[in-house]
């Protein structure tokens, strides 16, 4: 039996939305208050969804210890209490953060879940309660 299991994590970070190829006026018009030169911050939440077979004996699917450790190492620890502009190459929109997390998690997924059925399916990031970005992911990369 296949299930889709999701687990949610959180971290706190600051950022500033600014695209260097645009003028200051264009950046202000495009990003509004998110372009404030000093930056601002959020309580980010990250939900990782994986597809896996339910073990008929244990009734468990995705090994949560593996998932927790993987997400902590790859997604959370590098960005927790950080200024995202200093930690990523692209403009730290929620979309770009999702694209980055997709690459990072896919790269590390195979080795972490070697020999297990768990396949990464989706990453969802909440920047605020109302700003949410999903990325459907392909785990064979």
């Amino acid at each position, binding site marked *: 039996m296949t299930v889709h299991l999701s687990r949610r994590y*959180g971290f*706190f*970070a*600051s*950022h500033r939305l600014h695209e260097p190829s645009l003028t200051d006026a264009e950046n202000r018009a495009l990003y509004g*208050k*998110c372009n*404030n030169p*000093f*930056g*601002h*911050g*959020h*309580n980010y939440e990250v939900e990782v969804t994986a597809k896996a077979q339910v073990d008929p004996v244990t009734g468990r699917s995705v090994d949560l210890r593996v998932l927790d450790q993987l997400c902590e190492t790859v997604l959370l620890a590098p960005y*927790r*209490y*950080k*200024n995202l502009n*200093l930690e990523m190459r692209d403009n730290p929109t929620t979309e770009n953060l999702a694209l980055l997390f997709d690459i990072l998690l896919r790269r590390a997924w195979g080795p972490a879940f070697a020999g297990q059925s768990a396949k990464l399916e989706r990453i969802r990031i909440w920047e*605020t*309660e109302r700003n949410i970005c999903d990325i459907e992911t392909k785990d064979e990369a």
Partner: protein
Amino acid sequence: MIISKKVEFSASHICRSPQLSDEENQRVYGPAANPQSHGHNYVVEVAIEGTPDPVTGMILDLKHLKDILEEKILSVYDHRLLNAEVDSFASLVPTVENMAIDMWKRIEAHIDATGRARLHSVRVHETNDLFVEYRGEA
């Protein structure tokens, strides 16, 4: 009778005191001492105390309260680096405790000035599992 209004904003801050050494800041504030800043989605609940008007049934027109909160709190705090852009924190660490006290100072007189209610408490949630409440000094 007490009525509360909730508003939200996003801001960054640095929890670091110039009166402490780097080691002490790290010990006291942990990762929140990162000088490059980090941030939160803050939720503020402002409670006012009064008696419902016999005609309108309202303690205070909540649009009036909302205007006060937007002008005195949100326009000051939202999408800001608190240490650099809110004057109260030029020499005060913007911990959630100090933020609640600062917000109280910013709005208390304006609530009094309505003649309808007095400020009861300012509750500031920094995360889902951490908030402080300030009820003034009286």
